[in-house]
């Protein structure tokens, strides 16, 4: 087999794998929406503000993507981008969870 053919075959295989994983990612995505739907309808209306700050905090899980960008030892443009994202996401993670906790501490029963 000549090198071009091998390359084409590899690329085709990679594309098939990518499509396969795209479908499984999509499956996870749709199922997670369903989980979110049922869980969130169960949230009591009185706690809708904490719900927003908690979801805000957990959406900062994109810090995971940022950490991978900052990870390499050599500094480049991506590392700077990743660093900025780490800072922003950290503000949210700490801020979001702490302000939620502050709010939730205040919800007390009678007496």
């Amino acid at each position, binding site marked *: 087999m000549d090198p071009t053919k091998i390359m084409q075959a590899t690329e085709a295989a990679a594309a098939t794998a990518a499509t396969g994983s795209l479908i499984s990612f999509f499956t996870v995505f749709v199922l997670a929406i369903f989980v979110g739907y049922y869980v969130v309808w169960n949230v009591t209306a009185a*706690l809708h503000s904490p719900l927003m700050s908690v979801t*805000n905090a957990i959406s900062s899980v994109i810090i995971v993507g940022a*950490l991978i960008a900052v990870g390499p030892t050599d500094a480049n443009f991506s590392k700077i981008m990743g660093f900025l994202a780490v800072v922003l996401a950290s503000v949210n993670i700490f801020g979001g969870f702490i302000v939620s906790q502050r709010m939730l501490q205040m*919800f007390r029963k009678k007496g």
Partner: protein
Amino acid sequence: MSEELTGLAYLLAAICFILALRGLSSPETARRGNLTGMIGMAIAIGTTLASAHVLSYTWIVAGILVGGTIGTVTALKIQMTALPQLVAAFHSLVGLAAVFVATATLYAPEAYGIGAVGNILTASLVEMAIGTFIGAVTFTGSIVAFAKLQGLVSGAPLVFPGQHILNAVLGIAAIVLIAWFSTSESYQAYWLIVALALILGFLIILPIGGADMPVVVSMLNSYSGWAACGIGFTLGNTLLIITGALVGSSGAILSYIMCKGMNRSFFNVILGGFGTEEGVAAATQGDKTVRQGSAEDASFIMQNAGKVIVVPGYGMAVAQAQHALREMGDVLKEAGVEVSYAIHPVAGRMPGHMNVLLAEANVPYDEVFELEEINHEFSTADVVYIIGANDVTNPAAKTDPTSPIYGMPILDVEKAQTVLFVKRGMASGYAGVDNELFFRDNTMMLFGDAKKMTEEILQSFG
């Protein structure tokens, strides 16, 4: 850490996040839920740091320290009345972070295993473009929402001719750019997408009025989730996809609840132009007269009542009247009066805003009720004390099909024996409509600042 172990740890983190939301179904379990969320985040970060991708830690530690300090200090110092703008500001950060991560991915795809520069998988490019687009819209949209809530710009809707056409054109341009970018991996196309999305974020939120902010804040909450999803697809990271979907659907449900609370469709809110800043002076009063009362009158009426229902609104938050209100409730309860609080779904500037403020003032949450729980109680109440609310009590929503708020679910306050309405002046509410409640025989208007009036009533209790 092996790929399998990393995947399992991410799954564990995702389960923690689901449990965190599950905990919010009742105040008793909510604190534990929030802690579970923190644990999930710690697992997610720890797992990533232990993976083979991360080799140097200096920048990471510095970034987390800087961001964490800013976040902690802000969260500890913020006043509860300023919560809506804080949440809006936080949303903007998530949006911007999503843009940064997408950019990092584009310039160094090898680190994420999605190809090499100039040869990134098309699917990844599409996902990247969508993630960064939603992120950028969330960023500027949230900045506008923040500025409106903080009072930096007027809360009045900003409308100009051709607005919707302009937005539509920009939207179509964005789709074309995404198609160009996905087929060419052109940096130029990428930055044009970012620029366009930033402009679009401003334009979408500017025409939406101040009191529609509960919907806007919920919507941006949802967007920040979808942005995380887009990044998750790009990186092939299930944790990001799951979390993004949870947040996205949560924000969408809140938007739906808020829209339903105003009997308006989502598109009606988004297209904007509804409402005025402080309410225009009521024009059509004619020869109708209002009965005006003093703090002494109010305290006398309430002390002789058997059952008082308090209806708080945004005005209570503005005047910071929640503590005085709780003290008033305490005195009344001591005198044997039954006191409860009625919350309309869209009271305040974010979902659940009133509940948090009352909780802050130590009002027990089992005295606070939602519209559908308490609406049948008004007919048996002796006094309704309306403080800082207006449109949500307007009977015209039930009786006048020509009213802009017709069909909106409202609190049936007019069924109570006496309605005490605390208000600064005769201006109409946000919707710009006259409230016929003012002119009813069983209504007594208490003109003044919400906090001052409540304090004066407190002093008049003998």
